[in-house]
């Protein structure tokens, strides 16, 4: 069983132009723990793929260092790093069979052919492609999902200590994508390989990761577990990138925000904001607005008008108007939202502790 490496990125910067767009990383630092499944999440152009290519050794940083288990590998070429990589477009070798794609790294490493065959069988089993059926097929004879499995098998064949994946599932159907993500997670647990997964899809990242980093414009915004990042976003960008959120402009006076019956002390977030006066942003997740009064007190009742109902299956999105000129979005179980008619006046409940405040 292969053990993963610890990956440390120290103050890495990189600027270059790719097809007319300036890509950049600005002083990125982060640590990925041994055996961790770590996602780098961000919109396109945020530098996540650049960072991954630097980790692979396909690109050299302008500044900063990369360490694997404490050893500086910044100047180590890709072919000498203990990595496996799955590319966004897979980059399977079209002239080779499934078997020869998977055995590629082993042949180069000079393994004897009986050991190669044993390993190819093992890895194909790991990605659930029956050897007898698939080993001698051409790449063009496989479905998208099967090609994906071959790409993962190829990357895992020589037992890398670091597995790098660049949005590998982005062109697949939702159902197959979810299936592959679960399998990747199982596979990663089984092999213990440190895995870094680049994606722009927050659902993939949350479903998959032990921890994740959210990036924007070449800067890491926040690192944490999916739950931490979702529930305590470091800033408004992270909050809105990790899920739908109501963003409300307000004003704090002497460390207290008062808005339509809502009263929030800023010292709850940081003791040195006790006397802050200035503009702030209030962030509230739609699912934190409930139709039923929560148990316990401290919940604020808002009287609003239901402007629109959007049926989403198990949940229904409610567009609410009439509270402090703010248009709020709420997410309620369809069972509770069903009797409500658009245009009617309803009472909704918000717990002050669910509201996050950011300086504007």
């Amino acid at each position, binding site marked *: 069983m292969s053990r993963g490496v610890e990956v440390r990125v120290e103050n890495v910067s990189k600027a270059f132009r790719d097809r007319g767009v300036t890509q950049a990383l600005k002083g990125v630092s982060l640590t990925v723990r041994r055996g961790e499944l770590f996602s780098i999440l961000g919109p396109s152009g945020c530098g996540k793929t650049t960072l991954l290519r630097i980790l*692979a*050794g*396909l690109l050299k940083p302008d500044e900063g260092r990369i360490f694997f288990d404490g050893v500086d590998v910044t100047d180590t*070429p*890709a*072919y*000498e790093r203990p*990595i*496996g*990589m799955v*590319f966004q*477009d897979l*980059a*399977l*070798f*079209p*002239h080779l069979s499934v078997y020869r794609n998977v055995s*590629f*790294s082993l*042949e*180069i*490493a000079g393994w004897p052919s009986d050991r190669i065959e044993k390993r190819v069988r093992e890895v194909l089993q790991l990605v659930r492609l029956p050897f007898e059926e698939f080993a001698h097929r051409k790449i*063009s004879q496989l479905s998208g999902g099967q090609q994906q499995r071959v790409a993962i098998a*190829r*990357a895992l064949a*020589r037992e890398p200590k670091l597995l*790098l994946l660049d949005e590998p599932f982005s062109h697949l159907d939702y159902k197959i994508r979810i299936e592959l993500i679960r399998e990747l997670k199982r596979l990663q647990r089984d092999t213990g390989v440190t895995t870094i997964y680049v994606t722009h899809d927050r659902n993939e990242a949350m479903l998959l990761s032990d921890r994740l980093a959210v990036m924007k414009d070449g800067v890491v915004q926040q690192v944490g577990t999916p739950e931490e990042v979702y529930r305590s976003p470091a800033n408004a960008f992270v909050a809105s990138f990790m899920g739908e959120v109501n963003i409300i402009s307000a004003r704090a006076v002497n460390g207290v925000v008062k808005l339509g019956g809502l009263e929030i002390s800023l010292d709850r977030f940081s003791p040195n904001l006790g006397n802050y006066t200035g503009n702030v942003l209030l962030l509230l997740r739609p699912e934190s607005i409930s139709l039923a009064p929560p148990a316990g007190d401290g919940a604020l009742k808002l009287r609003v008008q239901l402007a629109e109902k959007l049926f989403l299956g198990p949940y229904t999105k409610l567009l609410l108007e009439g509270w402090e000129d703010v248009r709020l979005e709420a997410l309620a179980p369809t069972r509770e939202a069903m009797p409500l008619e658009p245009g009617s006046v309803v009472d909704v409940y918000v717990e002050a502790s669910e509201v996050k405040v950011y300086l504007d």
Partner: protein
Amino acid sequence: MSRRAPLPSALVLLAAVPLAYVLATFYLPLLVMLAESLKPQGLSLYVYVLFNPDYAAIMAYSLVLAVVTTASTFLVALPAAYYLSFHVEDEKRKSRLLAAFTVPMLVNFLLKAYALMNVLSVLGLANTYLGMVVGMVYEYLPYMLLPLFSSFERVERRLLEAAQALGARSHHTFLRVVLPLSLPGIASGVALVFLMSFTEFIVPAMLGGVYGYTMGYLIWDLFLKYRNWPVGSALAFMVTLVSLAIVYFYTRWGLGYEA
């Protein structure tokens, strides 16, 4: 009702006119040549030509020269095409360098050959086998370089990165990824240069001295010096058959993998 619309007659003409041209200028003369060769004594002339040791020797000599030329041209073109395609980043520079390699193709060979003769004399290579091969490579280099270059250009660069990430150094990547994926281009270049050099006679005649007596030269002599049209036609027809056979096998096997 057939789902395929009949080809409009005007479009048929688009193909028919060039086809008629090729028929009139290539296939028809070929048949005339065949008839010419069969006129005096029928197929027994072919038996005579086939088993004539002198002709067989010249045929073999020409084939060897074609193999030597093709191999030398390949060895010269390969590094040039590789460098141009993979190591020249700037697109403008790339097309300028490519032009430098291929512009000689646009100059009449007779002019180039006289220039080359001077250089070869200075080097003491005039009328030697090596001098003749140098001349052949010089003439055919673009025909090898262009197909090699364009098939290198078509190799997905991502595949090179994938190979690198699997532990491949550049020579592994070249042998295991670039070369196999470029087989169609290599096959075109090799077939083209082999066929042209097999029937070439101007370069051997001008630069080869005593080494220059090839099949092409022999046929030229038979027609214009000895006025032996039947034997000349029979030889020319057989050379054409060999060339067509090579083209046939090339189109069946030479195209490499299908994506």
